[in-house]
């Protein structure tokens, strides 16, 4: 019985010892797991430290200078430009502007990084130098870690760091506009031609009113050069816009002389009395008694400040277009048309006048280009209307004639036209010529060329026709 009691009392005691033992084992197990965990964590941190991409970047920053980074970046330019910019040139300009003498630093571009690729931006002071890619290396380490090797070094989009401008150019149609030595074509037209504020009255009346073409290009980076027809233009800066005016004002001019009863149009706009700047008889002055009256009145139309070179046309009463004589750039002279519908008797007279004009002008040229020739002198005088200014001019010219041993005249072009009756006993015609003249002395030989036009007037006295006036057209 006593033995039985002893056994029964020992059971709770044993149970009481098991629980603490369990707790000890439980604690030991927990601590062991914790210890192993800490050990693994310790190991991980050791590997983490040496496999950080930043650790690799720190190593690179130790050995690379700002110039080294920029040299590498220049090999991979990561930005797109317009056709007017040269990436290499822009990068070179950008490179010049960078601060490279300050301590280097870097920042990570986490948004473009992952476990296999890390992207960093290397900086010097406030300047971004380049973008650096680190790629996962071949060395694989526990915990999925790996080493890093240098990947692509590129410029990045440097345009984000550069100030951009928009270029606006106002030009006339037909002007050659070049931006950084490349032609601006229609692609860059804004589609909204601009009105010209100080447009002349005549141009505002033309069928096609001149407008300014407006080009717009941007954003552009770096140096900007704009030229119009080869002339470099100066920029007007307004915020981030550079404005260039290829036309600063109308500079063109136009002079038209035409008989009063001739209809003249400029760019489709018909000229009126309001456009007449001068009315005169010109070289016909003093010949009124032969010519009658207003038929001799010649209107002069002068325009300045033009933006265009408009087309000029003239028409006779029947609507026939007349051919002008050009006496200079944008200087037109119109005459009455030749009498086409002359009857047979008149035709004879006209033929005679053509011959007279040709022979008179031929003698005149010979007389004025050779040593004094009394035969020519008297021949000209006899063919010239007595009492006219022309006769007086020739009469007094003998002393002024040039002496030369030998002179030659070669007619390159000789064109008689516009023979037209302008009075009962009066005709006029024009002669356009291009002459090559050579004068020789024992000292030298002088060559010259003369291209011009003259207007001749013939007056009949009795049965005979005489030259009454001869003058350079446009003088």
């Amino acid at each position: 019985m006593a033995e039985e009691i002893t056994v029964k009392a020992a059971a709770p005691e044993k149970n009481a010892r098991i629980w603490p033992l369990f707790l000890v084992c439980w604690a030991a197990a927990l601590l062991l797991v914790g210890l192993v965990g800490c050990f693994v964590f310790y190991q991980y941190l050791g590997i983490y430290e040496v496999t950080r991409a930043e650790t690799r970047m720190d190593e690179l920053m130790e050995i690379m200078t700002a110039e080294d980074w920029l040299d590498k970046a220049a090999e991979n330019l990561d930005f797109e430009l317009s056709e007017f910019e040269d990436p290499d040139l822009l990068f070179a300009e950008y490179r010049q502007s960078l601060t490279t003498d300050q301590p280097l630093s870097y920042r990570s571009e986490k948004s473009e990084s992952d476990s296999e690729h890390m992207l960093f931006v290397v900086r010097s002071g406030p300047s971004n130098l380049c973008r650096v890619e680190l790629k996962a290396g071949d060395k694989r380490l526990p915990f999925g870690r790996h080493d890093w090797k240098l990947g692509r070094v590129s410029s990045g989009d440097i345009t984000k760091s550069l100030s951009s401008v928009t270029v606006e150019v106002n030009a006339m149609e037909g002007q050659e506009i070049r931006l950084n030595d490349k032609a601006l074509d229609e692609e860059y037209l804004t589609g909204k031609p601009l009105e010209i504020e100080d447009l002349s009255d005549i141009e505002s009346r033309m069928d096609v009113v001149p407008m300014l073409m407006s080009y717009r290009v941007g954003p552009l980076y770096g140096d900007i050069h704009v030229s119009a027809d080869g002339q470099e233009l100066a920029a007007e800066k307004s915020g981030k816009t550079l404005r260039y005016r290829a036309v600063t004002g109308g500079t063109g001019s136009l002079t038209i002389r035409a008989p009063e009863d001739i209809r003249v149009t400029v760019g489709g706009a018909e000229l009126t009395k309001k456009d007449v700047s001068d009315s005169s008889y010109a070289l016909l002055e003093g010949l009124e008694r032969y010519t009658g009256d207003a038929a001799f009145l010649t209107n002069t139309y002068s325009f300045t400040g033009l933006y265009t070179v408009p087309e000029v046309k003239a028409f006779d009463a029947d609507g026939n277009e007349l051919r002008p004589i050009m006496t200079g750039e944008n200087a037109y002279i119109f005459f009455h048309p030749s009498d086409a519908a002359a009857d047979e008797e008149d035709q004879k007279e006209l033929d005679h006048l053509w011959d007279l004009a040709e022979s008179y002008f031929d003698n005149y040229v010979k007389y004025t280009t050779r040593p004094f020739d009394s035969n020519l002198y008297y021949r000209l005088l006899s063919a010239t209307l007595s009492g006219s200014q022309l006769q007086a001019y020739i009469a007094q010219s003998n002393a002024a004639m040039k002496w030369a041993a030998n002179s030659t005249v070669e007619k390159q072009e000789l064109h008689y036209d516009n023979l037209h009756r302008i009075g009962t006993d009066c005709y006029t015609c024009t002669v356009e010529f291009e002459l090559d003249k050579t004068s020789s002395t024992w000292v030298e030989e002088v060559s010259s060329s003369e291209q011009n036009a003259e207007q001749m007037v013939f007056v009949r006295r009795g049965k005979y026709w005489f030259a009454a006036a001869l003058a350079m057209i446009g003088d």
Partner: protein
Amino acid sequence: METETVKKKSMPKWLARALSFLGVTLGCILLVLLGVIWVLEKGPSPTVTETFTRSVRETSAIRWVSRIFLSEEELEAYKSVSSPTDEVKTVNTSLIHMAETVETVDEDDPGYELVEISEGTCKGKLLIVKDPKRVILGTSDNFGREPGLQMTAMVEKYGAIAGINAGGFNDEGGRGNGSTPQGLVIDNGEVTWGGNHTGGFHVVGLDYDGILHVGFMTVQQALDAGIRWAVSFETYDGLASALIINGEVQKHNLGGGVNPRTAIGQREDGALLLLVLDGRSISTLGATMRDLADIMLEYGAVNAGNLDGGSSSVMVYGGEIINNCASVVGPRRVPTAFLLMEEGDVDG
């Protein structure tokens, strides 16, 4: 003789065992945690050691953790050491070129843009405000006497579109109620806190032209710079608020652990960047000061300043908190906030 028998009541055995099991388990977990902390603070990764130590030191409630294995001498190394030249750096206002008056008004453009930030381990919200003059400083009433305001209340008080917390405040042991601002507060050109302090502050402020100023300055220097709205902030270890000045990262201020963060920056075109990064959650532990600076640079900041972080980091938009507030007891009360106002609501 009467004998009195006193019968002792003993704890039920099952309860005693449960408690002992729990105690041993918790004790072991605590020991393991200490082991983990030891590995973090004394382990082979200086990077992790620094990040961990700074993180806990920036958090008022658990700052003591940093002292478990690290001596005072070792902790001294985490304190900010800025040179005299660092402290005189000021914002060069000529680097900010405010966008010109927009020629064509786009009615669909509200003038601001909310951007989701998800970069590496950093997650948060970025509010880009084109016109910096639309951002003002909101303040609670009666600094030092009344508690601060929760951000939603602050935004509502001013009728703002959005807002982020701004300056620091006294927060001993994490029990601060946002009543007492840290350092300087300039409210619409008036010094409302810190005016008696003769030294300088690490200021983050906006001047009358909407230009962001960050840097160390006295009250008078701040006023002379034309600062209209300002707060100041520095971390427990004395890291200043300036992250970027004139495009240059202020390296000496880039210490700091992983925590929720709030910052303000300004691009060259004047646009303000209001940034809040989450932390202390499973999805993200937070961001370092370097992370803040990197994100600010990525979005074009020329100047940027760090603001109060941790549980205070909150962005309110549309009347609601739109980031993950790290405070487990609900949004904290703060004394100051940068607020985005409706166009035309800000005088001057």
